[in-house]
């Protein structure tokens, strides 16, 4: 088992494995996506208070979850890469960052589109939205730092430290923003606390979240493959690849 793990922890063996895994995760993403959309648009009833506008939550909640979850996963891989010096884990962290940033952006975008009809304003300085914005900044910082460092190993390690510092800080930031929000009696936006959350609504949300999850895995695997080719272009195994040989 140990040998097996080690084997697939090297880019050479992981590259074809990832290639085989991508279609499966993509298919799962489509499956969950279609069923989530069907539940969200055709099964879930109209909300008594928010009308049809509430249907935005089907993607908003999933995107917010993914943006936070991906940051944790990214920090996890980065720290593994830092402590065990495994190249693949660090590459995985770099591959996850753009997708996480995209979900953070989507969460903000859908939040704003929800807020306009419900609150009459595109942006409220609500604790969650503000934290999400800061999370987006953290992602952008990570991506910018890695892009600015030419030596890949140094970029990996520096990014890992930043991700770890970020992970320690996210709860502190969230707590402080919440504290600030209650002190200023600001608006509290809650998309999820609809008075009567129908079971079908919850299920639709869950399906969409699963769709995003599977999508993220597929996309991260695809990106990590590209990163492997870029980074390992002098290795023997890369030049032996079928797609390179042809």
């Amino acid at each position, binding site marked *: 088992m140990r040998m097996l793990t080690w084997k697939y922890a090297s880019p050479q063996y992981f590259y074809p494995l990832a290639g085989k895994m991508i279609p499966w995760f993509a298919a799962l993403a489509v499956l969950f996506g279609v069923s989530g959309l069907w539940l969200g648009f055709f099964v879930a009833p109209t909300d008594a208070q928010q009308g049809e506008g509430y249907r935005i939550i089907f993607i908003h909640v999933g995107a917010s979850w993914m943006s936070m979850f991906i940051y944790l996963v990214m920090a996890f891989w980065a720290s593994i890469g830092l402590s065990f010096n495994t190249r693949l884990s660090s590459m995985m962290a770099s591959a996850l960052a753009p997708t996480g940033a995209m979900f953070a952006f989507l969460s903000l975008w859908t939040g704003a589109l929800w807020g306009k009809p419900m609150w009459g304003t595109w942006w409220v300085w609500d604790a969650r939205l503000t934290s999400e914005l800061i999370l987006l900044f953290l992602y952008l910082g990570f991506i910018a730092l890695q892009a600015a460092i*030419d*030596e890949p190993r140094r970029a990996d390690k520096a990014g890992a430290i930043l991700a770890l510092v970020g992970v320690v800080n996210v709860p502190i930031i969230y707590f402080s923003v919440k504290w600030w929000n209650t002190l200023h009696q600001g608006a509290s936006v809650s998309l999820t606390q609809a008075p009567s959350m129908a079971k079908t609504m919850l299920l639709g949300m869950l399906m969409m979240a699963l769709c995003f999850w599977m999508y993220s895995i597929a996309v991260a695997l695809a990106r990590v493959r590209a990163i492997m080719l870029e980074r390992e*272009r*002098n290795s023997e195994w890369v030049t032996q690849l079928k797609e390179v040989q042809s």
Partner: protein
Amino acid sequence: MLTATHLACVRGDRRLFAGLGFTLEAGAWIYLTGENGSGKTSLLRILVGLSPPEAGEILWQGTPITSLGDDYRKAVTYLGHHNALKEELTASENLCMGAALAGIVLEKSEATKMLAEVGLAGREELPVRFLSQGQKRRVALARLLWSKSPLWVLDEPFVALDAAAVLWLAETLAEHLAAGGMAILTSHQEVAIAGSTMQTLRLAA
């Protein structure tokens, strides 16, 4: 005794060297040569523990330097390309501060004496930015006089030095080796150190 086995170094896409090994005994020194860009400085930085090697291991008295930590750092004095001098501080302040980092208390009178020995008598109270390149290098080399480390790792120590200073450095090195010390140095000019065992290590570009 310093032992290196199967050292490899990669910079960017380039493999600078691989499978490099040597043993350095007390009282001996290594003359490290090679063309520009062959990895001399990289090797020295690996040997002192600043950067980890891509592969291989370095043993100090039989123990890997990674597990020795501060004990190894105490045993090494390193002088890189840069002089590690603060332009705003005087020569003697620089010398005392450098010693303080290594945990050695240096009195001002001692610093003055050491600076006089490297030929900077009367200039010890001048901010370093007023000194010439060669004089700055001599201030940097004066650290060898307070160093209690058995292993000296010097990157191009002779650069910018005049004939008198070169002679002084060769003598200082000879004394250090005679007392059972070790040294590794790179140089573009021929170096002769009286009564010592020399190993030449050539890095191919």
